[in-house]
């Protein structure tokens, strides 16, 4: 059985990943729709900026977050003074770091599935009395459900494995920001920590397997629901 410290790291990892996925999902759907269905000045630029986390080292993202959203950063001071929210060195900060690093993965999956939906179905819905929002919710959204789900799984997996941005932005505070990868790294740094590291490796792999099997099962359910057609 995992020790209390291990359980803590496991639960923290799950909490950070879940919040990171759920928090970024509405934004990802909205932006994916914008990119897939509209053309506006700066379309390519926005698309490029959103893909930066995919191509730069996560440490760069973590450092930028530290500069802008850390306690001394302009964004961090604004959040602290106006809303009383602190992101630096908190698990919420870890969730934000994860969300940003995983965002392009979720965005790409959702955008591709929106592009796969026949717009003529949405037109048909409009002629049958559905407003654009209603057509999106009752026709488009159910049809892209498998893509949305795939995006969530990718993003969740990326969040569980997040290391560089997290340790740079919120450090590795046991119980607050020390997720499984960070705990593993900490154990590996200590002389004689091999046994501890091995246990964390087993926990990580078990968690990943459970998540994979679970997502496969859910994906089948979702595909059945939206009846196979993109």
């Amino acid at each position: 059985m995992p020790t209390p410290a291990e359980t803590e790291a496991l639960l923290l990892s799950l909490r950070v990943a879940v919040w990171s996925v759920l928090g970024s999902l509405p934004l990802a759907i909205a932006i994916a729709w914008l990119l897939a269905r509209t053309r506006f000045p700066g379309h390519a630029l926005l698309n490029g900026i959103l893909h930066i986390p995919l191509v730069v080292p996560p440490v760069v993202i973590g450092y930028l977050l530290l500069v802008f959203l850390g306690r001394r950063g302009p964004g961090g001071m604004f959040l602290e003074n106006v809303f009383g929210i602190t992101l630096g060195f908190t698990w919420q900060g870890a969730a934000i770091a994860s969300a940003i690093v995983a965002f392009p993965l979720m965005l790409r999956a959702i955008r591709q599935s929106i592009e796969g939906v026949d717009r003529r179905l949405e037109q048909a819905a409009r002629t049958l009395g559905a407003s654009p929002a209603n057509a999106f919710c009752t026709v488009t959204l159910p049809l892209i459900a498998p893509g949305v789900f795939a995006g969530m799984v990718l993003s969740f997996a990326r969040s569980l494995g997040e290391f560089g941005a997290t340790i740079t932005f919120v450090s590795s505070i046991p119980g607050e920001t020390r997720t499984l990868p960070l705990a593993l790294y900490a154990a590996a740094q200590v002389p004689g920590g091999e046994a501890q590291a091995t246990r964390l490796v087993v926990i990580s792999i078990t968690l990943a397997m459970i998540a994979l099997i679970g997502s496969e099962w859910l994906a089948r359910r979702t595909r059945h629901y939206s009846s196979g057609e993109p």
Partner: protein
Amino acid sequence: MIDVAFTHRQGSFSLDVNMQVPDSGVTGLFGTSGAGKSTVADAIAGLIRPDAGRIAIGETVLFDSARGVAVAPERRRIGYVFQEARLFPHMNVQANLHFGGRRRGAASPDTFEQVVGLLGLEPLLDRRTRHLSGGEAQRVAIGRALLSGPDLLIMDEPLSSLDQQRRDDVLPHLERLAADTGVPTVYITHSIEEIIRLADHLAVMANGTVLACGPIQDVMARPDLPVLTDRRDAGTILLTTVAGHFDDDHLSALRFGEHTLLVPRTDRAEGAPLALRILARDVSLALEPPQRSSVMNVLPGTVTGIHPRGDGHVDVSIDSGQIIRARITRRSADDLSLKVGLELYALVKSVAFAERDAFRRHAAGEE
């Protein structure tokens, strides 16, 4: 009246449309592909916004560029049947049928039953849409449009994606719809057969403009519409009444004005209205009534127009109470010294009536 008048530019293609559609019965919108028919449908339904113009159903203005009116498609109450069925793949047939009603105030159970019965959808209700054949899917799409409570139904070549057998499967349903639902319909097609079976009114489009619009027999009788007259099966339409049957000879007598026509036995009751299509190539002309000829139908009339064609033929319009057209060779026309005002006889071979698609109902209200 449904007024459709607008201009619209789409890339290098520009439309200048002006037509009035009666607010009952079926109006055929006929034209070759690329004439702009679907763009007209999209403009009426609100799926495209024309550059300028006005579209109104009776008093209800749907689009008026001068007053800045452009009603959103979901508020227009236009039932639109597309070339492809466009059913929602994540819903079964029943949910597809209810989609419009849920959003526009559900159709009464009676209406639902009526539409389902009319289109033969009963056995399909619980099916998933991907398990439907093309003809079944198109019938569901028609039902879905009808059940959204439309003020106007637009069908954009609903049969064009189907093979001949499926067409024959759907067409009778369309004929019954036209008669039974009372929803004014614009039926877009490039098939003259479908027009003749379904439409009471006809609008003819070419190159982005409406060339003619009016009662079908008037438009079909016009000699100046190449999309109609350049066809091998060019002809006119006669509105007649069944006068009686001769069962031994397998013939029926039809009356129009003071004339009687003998045609292959029809199963229409005596007194029923019946429209006929007479192909110009099946009509020949004589200056005197032929003696002892096998041609049964000889109609006296007056030449009202002579229209030379490029291919050595001449189209002759004859007023015999209604307009009949004969396509004869130029040499025959010269031999007969045809001129406008000449009285002569139009000889109509009975076989011209034998085509199944020659029988067409009158406007639903007259039946």
